[in-house]
């Protein structure tokens, strides 16, 4: 039982990271109806900026954390304004290719600027364990969960209780009507991209802390779990993305613990892929998604 609880907590911690990135994907999907394949690499790039500030410029962790999130917001905003918005009219495939171009470019730039060798992020989020009775709770997982849930609550409040949030939602749901009512729709969509970049930066920083060392490819695995989580929850549902991420994290950890012969760490991805395919077959719109009815 103690091991079970321990694995569930550890799974929730991993799941929080997937949830954060999945939420970023959902935000962008709702705002611009594109899957941003560069989402993981945007988080990776933000993590490298934070690493450079801490290692080369002697910043301490929390100011760096806040500053990196700010830079990431501007980055996401800028990418939408400079790349996505001008190409939006050219069609879905062109925009998807643009995000792939960004993916390749960011990963190339990171290993070009900072070298592809392993880096260590000096982070206070790496911890030991708390003992509760016989259960050893990994502190890392609790931190991850708290940071991500905190961000989710902030975002939720922003979207639901502020005028900006209303404008953001309106732009996503009905751009034409919003424009008629005086909302600057392109700006709102860019702000959505900015928030998504912030979420992916959080995912990157947490994942880099959790893994101790990171390389320019460290987010590729995380982004696939995040895709799986987003699809699991229904690509349009923010709540679904969070639940999907947490479920996936716990499931994979438990499978890894109780089916140890089959599911070694490197076999977790194929398992995630299998889960993804199964969900897609039986519930194409995800657990919390709506079935889309298209008019002919």
């Amino acid at each position, binding site marked *: 039982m103690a091991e079970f609880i321990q694995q569930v907590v550890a799974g929730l911690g991993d799941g929080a990271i997937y949830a954060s990135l999945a939420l970023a994907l959902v935000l962008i999907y709702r705002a611009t109806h594109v*899957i941003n394949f560069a989402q993981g690499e945007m988080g990776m790039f933000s993590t490298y900026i934070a690493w450079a500030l801490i290692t080369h410029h002697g910043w301490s962790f929390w100011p760096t954390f806040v500053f990196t999130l700010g830079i990431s917001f501007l980055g996401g905003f800028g990418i939408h304004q400079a790349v996505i918005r001008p190409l939006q009219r050219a069609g879905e495939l062109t925009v998807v290719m643009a995000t792939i171009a960004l993916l*390749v*470019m960011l990963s190339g730039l990171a290993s070009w*600027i900072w*070298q592809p060798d392993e880096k260590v992020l000096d982070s206070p989020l790496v911890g030991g364990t708390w003992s509760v009775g016989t259960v050893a709770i990994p502190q890392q997982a609790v931190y991850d969960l708290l940071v991500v849930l905190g961000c989710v609550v902030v975002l939720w409040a922003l979207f639901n209780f502020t005028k900006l949030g209303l404008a953001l939602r309106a732009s996503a749901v009905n751009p034409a009507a919003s424009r008629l009512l005086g909302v600057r729709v392109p700006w709102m969509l860019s702000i959505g991209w900015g928030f998504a970049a912030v979420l992916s930066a959080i995912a990157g920083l947490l994942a880099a802390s959790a893994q101790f060392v990171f390389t320019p490819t460290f987010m590729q695995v995380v982004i696939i779990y995040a895709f*799986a989580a987003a699809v699991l929850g229904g690509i349009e549902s923010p709540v679904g993305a969070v639940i999907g991420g947490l479920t996936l994290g716990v499931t994979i950890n438990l499978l890894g613990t109780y089916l140890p012969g089959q599911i070694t760490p490197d076999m977790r991805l*194929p398992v995630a892929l299998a889960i993804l395919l199964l969900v*897609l077959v039986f519930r194409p719109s995800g657990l919390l998604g709506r079935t889309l009815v298209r008019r002919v």
Partner: protein
Amino acid sequence: MTARRLVPGVVATLLAAAAVCVLPYFLSDTHEYRFAFVATFFIAALGLQILTGYAGQISLGHGGFMLVGAYVTTILSVDHGWNDLSTIPLAGLFAGVLGFLFGFPALRLRGVYLALATFAIPIALIALAKKYSDFTGGGGGKPLTRVLTGHEAYVTTWPIAGGMFVLGWLLLSGKLGRAFRTIRESEIAAVSSGINLALTKTLAFGISAFFAGVAGSLYAIIIGFVNPDTFQIELSLLLLIGVVVGGLGSLVGVVVGALFIEYVRLYAPEILSWVEAPFGSPLDPKRAGAPAAVYGLILLVVLFISPSGAAGLLRNAYKSLARRAYTLRRT
């Protein structure tokens, strides 16, 4: 399609074929070897072109099917004593069936979900190849029975590439090709005109995986060595980038895409030094990561300038030439 509209395509194809036949007399052994890689990328990108350019479905995982083809060839020729060239059809078939099976659940979905699922193919297959190491040689790789010279590699790959091109062209000019294009333009129209959507999409996926399997098999043969890490997600993305840069929906454009994939890697430092010259950047263009940055940058530029790629540029140039010739004749 009228005969007149076919002319530019046929001329371009014949020119490319002639170039392929003549080139070995001019190229050094090293460059013949490089051109053999161009041929394998050409075959894989042809498959992806059929799927993405014609049937309108995105795959970010075709490198995974190359891995399957490469391992079928390696295992059959090393462990079972087959002639490596005779394993090629089987490698293609195996990858094709796998693609068909994968496409079966995945292709019931619309574009974005499919692309999401395909992203995981190479990563999952690499993990599998590393896990079952007594079968595949694991992360350390596995050598094949022989190593080819540049010239041998060239004359092995290009006839097969030519054959695959003809095969692709025949497939696409028939009823199936028309069904693919209908799906790309409008799924609803396709269904209402009696096309079995799921089956046709899955077929497109299987056929393109077949091409990728053949390419992977040749890749293993010309390198003489397989390693799972060769088929990382970057390779799959590179194939897609090549197809888009060459021009979606153009078979001849794939040649440009394949040349692009192989040669940008070689000339990335030079390209970057032109870009950097006015700024005087402190970064060394020879360092790792520079080629990827260049690939991404070029793809973005192509998307902005000519979303239909090199083939689109050529087509527009031909059209304006033809129009000019027409007006000249009239006056």
